[in-house]
């Protein structure tokens, strides 16, 4: 029972990281109708920036995270402006291939700058741990922080998209770009803003991920990126609550699967679940059925 709880909490923690990454995928998909496959690598860049800030510049963790967020925000906006914006009217396949190209570009840049030797990510935060069941169940600082960060981000994004002018504009653009433009909304700027938010979240996810799984190398972002993308599709791509739900479920399924079924098959299990869900609910758990506009 205690061990089940431990797995469950680990799953929720890992799922929270997936959820934060999935938000970036889903928001960008919602507004630009493209899959930004470089998103996972932005996580990796965020983690490296935080790593350098703490290990080489001896900055406090919170400052390091903020710095990583600033760098990733800028990176996201630059990627969108240089690589994706010129392709706004191009075929979807061209954009997809560009995104894959950007992904490799970032990985190779990281390889050049930081080499392929794995870095050991320092323990970032210490907010104390929770001990339950006479110390049989220990919930670590990282776990608590990851779950709290996830909840805070969820609430902040919900308020942003529901209450603020720019958040509403973002929803308007994701529904109908032409109509949004007729309202006086600058569509390009709104898309940039979405990339900025998604990338800042990626930086947070990178730090949280590496706090729990402290091996950092240029490919660190790929697998979590792909899983978070899976989570976004699982929850219903384009839906913010969907990304949250998908991320959490995926994390829990992965950890429980690894614990009770097979460590080796844990990842395969994740994708098996995705395929089964999509067979029955093609739009994902919370996704709206597609009605393609002409």
């Amino acid at each position: 029972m205690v061990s089940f709880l431990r797995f469950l909490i680990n799953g929720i923690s890992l799922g929270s990281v997936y959820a934060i990454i999935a938000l970036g995928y889903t928001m960008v998909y919602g507004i630009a109708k493209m899959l930004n496959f470089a998103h996972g690598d932005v996580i990796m860049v965020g983690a490296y920036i935080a790593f350098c800030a703490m290990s080489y510049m001896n900055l406090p963790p919170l400052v390091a995270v903020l710095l990583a967020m600033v760098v990733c925000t800028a990176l996201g906006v630059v990627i969108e402006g240089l690589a994706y914006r010129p392709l706004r009217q191009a075929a979807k396949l061209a954009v997809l291939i560009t995104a894959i190209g950007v992904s490799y570009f970032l990985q190779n840049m990281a390889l050049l700058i930081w080499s392929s030797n794995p870095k050991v990510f320092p323990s970032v935060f210490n907010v104390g741990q929770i001990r339950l069941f006479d110390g049989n169940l220990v919930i670590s600082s990282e776990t608590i922080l990851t779950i709290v960060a996830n909840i805070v981000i969820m609430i902040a994004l919900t308020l942003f998209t529901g209450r603020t002018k720019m958040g509403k504009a973002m929803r308007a653009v994701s529904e109908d770009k032409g109509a949004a433009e007729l309202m006086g909304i600058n569509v390009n700027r709104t898309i940039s803003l979405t990339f900025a938010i998604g990338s800042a979240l990626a930086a947070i996810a990178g730090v949280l991920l590496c706090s729990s799984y402290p091996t950092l190398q240029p490919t660190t972002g790929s697998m979590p990126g792909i899983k978070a993308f899976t989570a976004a599709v699982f929850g219903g791509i384009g839906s913010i609550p969907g990304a949250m739900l998908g991320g959490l479920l995926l994390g829990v399924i992965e950890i429980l699967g690894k614990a009770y079924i097979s460590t080796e098959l844990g990842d395969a299990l994740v994708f098996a679940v995705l395929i089964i869900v999509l067979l029955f609910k093609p739009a994902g758990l919370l996704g709206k059925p597609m009605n393609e506009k002409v």
Partner: protein
Amino acid sequence: MSENNRTPLLKVDDIHVYYGSIHAIKGVSFEVNEGEIVTLIGANGAGKSTTLNTVSGLLKPRMGMISFKGESIVGMGASRIVAKGMALCPEGRRVFQQMTVRENLEMGGFTRPAEEIPASLEDVFKRFPRLKEREKQVAGTLSGGEQQMLAMGRALMSKPTLLMLDEPSMGLAPILVEQIFDIIKELHAAGVTILLVEQNAQMALSVANRAYVLGTGKITISGDAEQVLNDDRVRAAYLGG
């Protein structure tokens, strides 16, 4: 009258618009003066919507001039043109289906200062009491007529000098069409200049001051609405004989 030496509110001069290699608009020119209702009529595919989309900045003409309030707006982009005082209520309404009625209206006032929004909302709700009843409802659940009212209300939220309406009667029951045209007349009486694109030529000509007839990318006939209404070619082609 002194109208001749006044600069028109909107002047479209010999615009050419292409979709890829298709030459959709082949040199269209027309004017809208302040305080007028001008209608653009024509068959399906004649280029009426393309013309409005070009004027609004959604499409860019390959050649030609468009000036609004004496200033060239070619290549300015729709979002900036709105702030100049021109609003397009697009074909098919295109309300934001997943947003509430109120949020749709707020988006309409996107370019205006936040403190002016409540008063404008009141104005729109006064003109369309139905929207007030549905304020918190998601726009996708509204009926066609209500969505048309919402689309018009949303366009009015930007306080336009020139309101362009693209097929406002499309798909509506006759009684609703009457209502929509009553509203157009009220708006005109309140000082809004209107450029109206309609398939329902009879209705459009009955409210308009002047009219242009568009036939496959070109203006074929123009004049006072009454004159156009009595034109034999127009009667044969658009008014059923």
